[in-house]
C-alpha cells in the first residue's frame, strides 16, 4: 500500500544562509548602491548613468536609486546554455546544476620535467586543454595559464583562445585584454556557428570580467561589459575582494559589497541594452594576515562562496564559484586537502560553474597533475551528492529475506545490477598490501603523474576544420597589424 504524507529527499540538501539572511544582505547591497555608489572610469558609462535616474557626482561616482537596480536585475535570463566548438559538449548554467572547470591566466606553469615553475607558454595552454577535454569530470575550460610567448602582450588573448580551441572541445570562460580583444574573441567564436544570430542561440563562452574592489570599475572592464550588453554575450562580473584588505573582514560585509559591485554592472548593462545573460560570482576570500597572500585554500573562501551561491539562487542568476585550488607550491598533501574540501563545499552549494580547479601556489602556478587529481575528487563528490534511493527495489526487503542469515550477496542479480551505481576509482589504490608492494609501492602522486603522461601522450581532441583555422588566424593577424604601430 502506498504511503501518504511522504517527503522524499532524493539528494543531500545544503545551504549556508536562510532566506531572511539573504534578504538582509540584498537589502544592504541596495543601500550601498544608493548611498555609497561606485566609481566608473569610462565616459560612455557615465553618460548612460547621467541620462538615467542615477546620480553622477565627483566626476565619476555613480549612485543609483533602488527602483532602477530592481528593474535591471530582473532583466537577466535565469539560465544560460553553453556549447563547445564541435557541439559535442553542452553545459547548462542554472540553479543547482554544478559544472567544474579550470581557472585562467596563471603566469607560471609547473614544469613536469624540471619540477620547477616557469613562465606559461602557448603549448602549456594547449596541453591543459587536452587534459580538460579528456577528463570526464571537468566540464568547462578556462585557459589555466596565460600565454606569454607572443609578439605583443596587447593581443595575447587571441593567441590564448586559439590555444584553448586547439586543445579543447568543451565550453569555455574567456578573459580578454579589453573591449577590442573581447570583440575579436567573439568573432573567432562565431566562426564555429553559421552567423552572429545563430551564435547567440548557441554561445561557446562566458566572458570573464571583474571590477576592482572596493566599488571601482576600470575602463577595460566597462568596455567589455558594454560590448557584452550590445551583443548579448554571456558574461560574469566577478569581484575578487580580499577580506580585511579590499572588503570588510566579516564574511557578511564582503558579501554585501560584492553583491553591490555585481548589481552595478547589472544596471549599466540594462541601460545599454536590457537582457544580457549575467553570471554572478566572485573569488571571495581572505588576505592572509601573516603572508598577505590572497588565499586560494582558505576555508573562508569556500564558506563565502557557498553563501554567495545561496544569494545567486535567490536572485535567479547562475553562479561562478571556486574550488579545486590551493596555496601549496606543489601537488602535496596540503593541495589534496584544500582541493577536496573546496570542491565538496562548492558542489553541495549548487553553484553553476566551479572554477580554478588545478590552481596551485595561491593562483600563480598552473599544475596539470592537479587537474587529474581533482577529476578523481570530483567523481567522489558527485557520488556523495547522489543521495539515497528508498524505493522498494532499493530497500531490498525481498532480497534480504531470500539470502537469509549467513548467506552471501556477491552472486545475486541485485548486486550485479546495482554495484554499477557505485563510484569506481581510477587512481585511488584499494589493492592489498602484497599487490601494492609487487606493483612498485606507488603513491597517489606516482599514479597521478603516470595518468597525466598517458593522457598527454594519447588524447587528441577533434581537429579544427582547416577553413575555420585559416579564418581564426586572419583575425589574429589583423589584430597584430593594428597593434604593430
Amino acid at each position, binding site marked *: 500500500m502506498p504511503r501518504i504524507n511522504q517527503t522524499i529527499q532524493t539528494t543531500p540538501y545544503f545551504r549556508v544562509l536562510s532566506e531572511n539572511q539573504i534578504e538582509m544582505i540584498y537589502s544592504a547591497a541596495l543601500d550601498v548602491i544608493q548611498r555609497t555608489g561606485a566609481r566608473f572610469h569610462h565616459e560612455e558609462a557615465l553618460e548612460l548613468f547621467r541620462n538615467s535616474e542615477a546620480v553622477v557626482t565627483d566626476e565619476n561616482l555613480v549612485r543609483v536609486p533602488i527602483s532602477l537596480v530592481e528593474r535591471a536585475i530582473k532583466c537577466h535570463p535565469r539560465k544560460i546554455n553553453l556549447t563547445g566548438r564541435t557541439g559535442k559538449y553542452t553545459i547548462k548554467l542554472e540553479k543547482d546544476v554544478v559544472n567544474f572547470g579550470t581557472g585562467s591566466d596563471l603566469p607560471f606553469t609547473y614544469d613536469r620535467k624540471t619540477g620547477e615553475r616557469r613562465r606559461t607558454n602557448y603549448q602549456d595552454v594547449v596541453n591543459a586543454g587536452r587534459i580538460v577535454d579528456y577528463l570526464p569530470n571537468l566540464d568547462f575550460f578556462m585557459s589555466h595559464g596565460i600565454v606569454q610567448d607572443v609578439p605583443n602582450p596587447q593581443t595575447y588573448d587571441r593567441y590564448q583562445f586559439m590555444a584553448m580551441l586547439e586543445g579543447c572541445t568543451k565550453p569555455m570562460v574567456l578573459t580578454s585584454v579589453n573591449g577590442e580583444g573581447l570583440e575579436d574573441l567573439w568573432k573567432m567564436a562565431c566562426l564555429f556557428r553559421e552567423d552572429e544570430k545563430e551564435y547567440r542561440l548557441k554561445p561557446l563562452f562566458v566572458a570573464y570580467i571583474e571590477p576592482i574592489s572596493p566599488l571601482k570599475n576600470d575602463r577595460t572592464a566597462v568596455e567589455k561589459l558594454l560590448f557584452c550588453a550590445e551583443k548579448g554575450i554571456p558574461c560574469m562580473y566577478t569581484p575578487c575582494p580580499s577580506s580585511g584588505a579590499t572588503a570588510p573582514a566579516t564574511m557578511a560585509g564582503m558579501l554585501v559589497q560584492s553583491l553591490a559591485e555585481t548589481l552595478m554592472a547589472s544596471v549599466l548593462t540594462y541601460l545599454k541594452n536590457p537582457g544580457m545573460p549575467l553570471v554572478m560570482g566572485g573569488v571571495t576570500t581572505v588576505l592572509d594576515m601573516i603572508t598577505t597572500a590572497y588565499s586560494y585554500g582558505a576555508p573562508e573562501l569556500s564558506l563565502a562562496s557557498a553563501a554567495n551561491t545561496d544569494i545567486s539562487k535567490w536572485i535567479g542568476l547562475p553562479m561562478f564559484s571556486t574550488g579545486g585550488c590551493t596555496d601549496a607550491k606543489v601537488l602535496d598533501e596540503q593541495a589534496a586537502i584544500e582541493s577536496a574540501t573546496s570542491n565538496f563545499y562548492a558542489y553541495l552549494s549548487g553553484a553553476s560553474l566551479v572554477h580554478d580547479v588545478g590552481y596551485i601556489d595561491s593562483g600563480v602556478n598552473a599544475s596539470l597533475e592537479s587537474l587529474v587529481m581533482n577529476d578523481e575528487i570530483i567523481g567522489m563528490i558527485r557520488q556523495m551528492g547522489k543521495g539515497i534511493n528508498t524505493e522498494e527495489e532499493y530497500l531490498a526487503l525481498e532480497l534480504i529475506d531470500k539470502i537469509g542469515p549467513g548467506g552471501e550477496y556477491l552472486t545475486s542479480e541485485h548486486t*550485479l545490477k546495482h554495484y554499477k551505481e557505485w563510484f569506481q576509482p581510477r587512481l585511488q589504490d584499494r589493492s592489498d598490501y602484497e599487490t601494492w608492494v609487487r606493483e612498485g609501492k606507488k603513491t597517489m602522486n606516482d599514479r597521478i603523474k603516470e595518468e597525466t603522461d598517458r593522457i598527454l601522450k594519447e588524447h587528441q581532441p577533434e581537429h579544427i576544420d582547416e577553413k575555420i583555422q585559416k579564418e581564426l588566424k586572419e583575425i589574429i593577424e589583423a589584430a597584430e597589424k593594428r597593434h604593430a604601430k
Partner: protein
Amino acid sequence: MSEKLGKIADGLLHGKIKEVAELTQELLDEGMDPEEILQKGLFAGMDVVGKKFRDCEMFIPEVLRSAKAMHAAMEKLRPVLSEESSSKAGTVVMATVQGDLHDIGKNLAGMMMEGAGFNVIDMGIDRKTEDIVAMVKDKKPQILGLSALLTTTMPKMGEVINALKEAGIRDQVKVIVGGAPVTDDFALEIGADAYAPNASIGTEKALELVKG
C-alpha cells in the same frame, strides 16, 4: 562444432549460465573430445575473463557470473574427463578454521576457483582441525584452502598443517592460506605452500600449484 566452442567462450564472458551448460552437453552428444571442449571452449573463455578482470574491464559480480557458467559446464564435463584432465582442473577443499565464523572471503575464493575449472568442496566455517584432515584423507584434493579473519584464529591454520604432517598426508596436498591478517611471512612460518592476499591471486596460485 568449432563454432559452438566459440559460443561457449563468448557465453562464459557474458555469464550465460544456461547457454554454456547446454552447448557443452550438445558438443558431448555430438561426440567431441571432452578435453577439447575444456581447452578450446571453457578455458579459452575464462582466460579472457581473467584478462578483462586484471585490466579492470570486468568486476567481481560479472566474474562470478562467468564462474557460475563455468561451474555449470564442468558439472557436465567432469564425469567424462580423463583422469589426467580431471586433475588439471583438480579438486579444492576449503574451510574457515575453528573458532572463526567469517566466510565471505573464502566463499569468493571458492567461486573464483570454480570459475577456473576446479571442483570446489566447501566445508564451511568454524571447522575442527580433525574434520579438515579427515576430509583431505577422504577426498584427496590437490589443494586445501584455509581461511581465518581473526588474529586469534590464525594459529589454527598452522595446527591444521601440523595435523596433516602427523597423519602422513602433508605431501599429498598443497595448502593455500588467506584472510585479512595473514601475510607471506606467516604462511612461510607455518609451512603453507602459498599465501593468497585475495581471491583472484588465490586462484592464480592454485593453478600454478596444480601445474607443479
